[in-house]
């Protein structure tokens, strides 16, 4: 029954399950550290702000799925690394932004968006053209910018659905063997000239600005809309799921650990105090404990979240309210045994205060059991929080795994087969739970006398 923390660790190291749990937990902590340090905080705060995700594709599968598919799905490309040239002749300055892409997919892209900010005076001309792998040059667009007498900046998004682009492309219809009437701009640009199929190879998009001295294009971004993106894909709201999954890790660990440590500490002190004082104090404290124990937790958590607040910190408090009861019961019965021991009675005779005896002599004896309880309580806290978030009662400003799954359920991801939106968050929840279940079971096997052989 008596363990020091060193004994506990020595025995724990020989448990395969416990060590497996430690390894998983270590990985999760590493992910959390990398996330907090490497990913800018703005992505976390802007998770629910659709404006932050404008350039991202809608409901795109993870990019690596192309490795397993017979037909390559076009990947989403966000190009902001254009090569810039400036040239000046005869009083006209030419500013060129050149994007080069290597297209190697078996389907047409979903469209493209070009966004730019131009600084100019007068009325410069903006043209956009593409040099295709078969060396044909297609003029996509040619348009004057709004005239201005003074120095001005102009920001605009050009969409592939723009009618002017379609009309310009129709002028090239003699370069295609098949008819291009009624096709969308992107499926003309990326089409083979002999047959209407995607043409693979190097495409060079050139944006030219013909203006006066000092005119320039800033923040030039070309987005080729694809159906595959990143490591984890995107959801219906164009959010990069890898960001949500990564930020979910420190959040889940934080919620799980704070709830577990808080409720185990509270339960431990409550139970030990009841057991140590005994008599009427014990009786009344345990009756109160019975009442909380018999309250239906989930319905109450839902009512509390709806009526009081769904802030994540308040939720942590609510989860603690229901978490400490079981621990209080067990630590009371352990305190009942320990208080009859000689050294406790000796301390009482020496006139030590009750608080001192509880904290110096009884609680240290229960610490190994407390560690095991903390580990065992974490998964329940994480799954309960995830469940509440899944019902839409979570804190909407935090990208928790439960909240990602709530969004997935709202948009019917399961019935639409969007596995990449559902499998990873659940796997993360399960994996985190599993790490603590492993650690908890291993600790329990050491400290629980009934499980010792």
């Amino acid at each position, binding site marked *: 029954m008596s363990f020091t923390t060193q004994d506990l660790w020595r025995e724990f190291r020989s448990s395969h399950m416990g060590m497996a749990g430690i390894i998983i937990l270590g990985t999760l902590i590493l992910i959390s550290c990398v996330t907090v340090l490497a990913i800018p905080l703005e992505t976390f705060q802007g998770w629910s702000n659709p404006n932050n995700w404008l350039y991202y594709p809608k409901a795109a599968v993870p990019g690596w799925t192309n490795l397993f598919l017979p037909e390559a799905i076009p990947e989403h490309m966000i190009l902001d690394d254009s090569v810039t040239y400036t040239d000046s002749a005869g009083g006209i300055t030419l500013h060129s932004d050149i994007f080069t892409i290597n297209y190697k997919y078996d389907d047409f892209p979903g469209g493209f968006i070009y966004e730019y900010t131009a600084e100019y005076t007068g009325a410069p001309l903006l043209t956009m053209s593409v040099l295709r792998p078969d060396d044909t040059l297609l003029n996509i667009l040619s348009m004057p910018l709004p005239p201005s007498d003074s120095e001005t900046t102009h920001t605009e998004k050009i969409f592939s659905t723009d009618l002017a682009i379609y009309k310009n492309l129709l002028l090239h219809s003699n370069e295609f063997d098949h008819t291009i009437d009624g096709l969308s701009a992107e499926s003309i640009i990326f089409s083979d000239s002999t047959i209407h199929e995607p043409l693979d190879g190097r495409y060079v998009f050139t944006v030219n600005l013909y203006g006066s001295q000092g005119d320039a294009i800033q923040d030039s971004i070309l987005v080729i809309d694809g159906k595959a993106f990143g490591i984890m894909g995107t959801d219906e709201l164009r959010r990069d799921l890898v960001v949500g999954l990564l930020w979910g890790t420190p959040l889940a660990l934080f919620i799980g650990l704070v709830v577990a440590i808080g409720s185990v500490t509270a339960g431990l002190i409550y139970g030990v105090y009841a057991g140590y004082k005994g008599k009427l104090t014990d009786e009344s404290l345990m*009756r109160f404990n*019975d*009442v909380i124990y*018999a*309250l*239906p937790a*989930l*319905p*109450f958590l*839902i*009512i*509390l979240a*709806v*009526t*009081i607040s769904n802030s994540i910190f308040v939720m942590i408090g609510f989860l603690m309210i229901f978490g400490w009861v079981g621990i209080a019961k067990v630590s009371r019965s352990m305190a009942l045994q320990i208080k009859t021991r000689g050294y406790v009675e000796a301390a009482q005779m020496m006139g030590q205060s009750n608080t001192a005896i509880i904290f110096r002599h009884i609680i240290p004896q229960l610490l190994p059991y407390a560690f095991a309880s903390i580990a065992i309580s974490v*998964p329940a806290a994480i*799954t309960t929080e*995830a*469940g509440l978030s*899944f*019902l*839409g009662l979570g804190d909407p400003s935090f990208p928790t795994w439960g909240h990602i*799954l709530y969004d*997935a*359920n709202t948009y019917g*991801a*399961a*019935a*639409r*087969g969007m*596995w990449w939106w*559902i*499998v990873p*968050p*659940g796997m993360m*929840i*399960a994996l985190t*739970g*599993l790490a603590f*279940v*492993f650690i908890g*079971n291993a600790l329990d096997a050491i400290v629980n006398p009934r499980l010792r052989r």
Partner: protein
Amino acid sequence: MGLKKYVATRVATLFGVLMVTLLLTVALVGSNMDVILKQGVAVQVRHEVAEIPGLADSFESVEAFEKYVQDTIDRRITELGLHEPWYSPQRIGLSMYKILLLDFGHATFLTSDSGSSNVGDIIAEKLPKTVLLFTTATIIISIIGILMGALSGSKVGSVLDRITSSFAVISSSFPVWWVGMLLIILFAFTWQIFPARATPPIPADDPGYIGALLYHMALPLITIVLIGFGAWAYLVRNFMVGILQDDFIFAKKTMGIPKKHIVYRHALKNAAPPIVTILALSLSGSLGGAIITEAVFDWPGMGRLYFEAITVLDMPVIIGATYVLTAFFLASIFVADILYGYFDPRVRTGP
């Protein structure tokens, strides 16, 4: 004597818990509910006043008309008893008394499928659906769990035993509702064997309704069983391992009784008390359904009713459903306590 006193304390405690639960629910939902109800009265009165032709013109000024409307609203609020705050003893006392007599009143927003707004009717309509799904699932889980647990408990260290144990540990850390979503992807999207939504699209009085309901029930049932039986098997296995080490089992073995006979007749019989206790606990616990699982599959049971009521703050339904859920929950604790006390000789004989 010991058992009687034990039962009496438990009944008193659990009844106290039921009252505390109701009081807490009324307190938490009450203040929000009053605001909603008062707004509802105001809207209704203004609507009624606008319906009476020529009424607005019969007043001399706009102020006088406004005063008339306000007076009507105040009178209506007093008639409904809303002028007193929700925490006044009369209102809480009255509502608690009514609830105890199972009179839950009328729902504010929700109705049953047949159109009744009586909370009792709504609950009576949803409860059988929950029983159908969750009680069936619990029975299947316990049968599979007991058989697998007994089998792996009799062969400790075998492949089956290891699979059962690790399956129990792993399945316990998966959220049931997430597994439900995965199965919807597999069986409703990829292979299209079962429907994704568990509510049949045909009306309840159609002759094919029962069949459609059972067909729609398949996916949630599979989910609950898949996640549930591992823990059962593990539990039964651990009981069996303990019992199979007892002396009387060695005695039977030396008498030459076949191993199968020992495991399924004698050992299982001795493991029965705790198993029966847990079975009682989970059977009565299953009546409350599972709020999140029903939400995933859109199963029209108690859990979904409860969630819908909370999202629109339909006070009478919340209180009625909380009462019924808590009553079942407490009944299951009580049955488990009693069975435990009955099987545990220390409690049965008493001092």
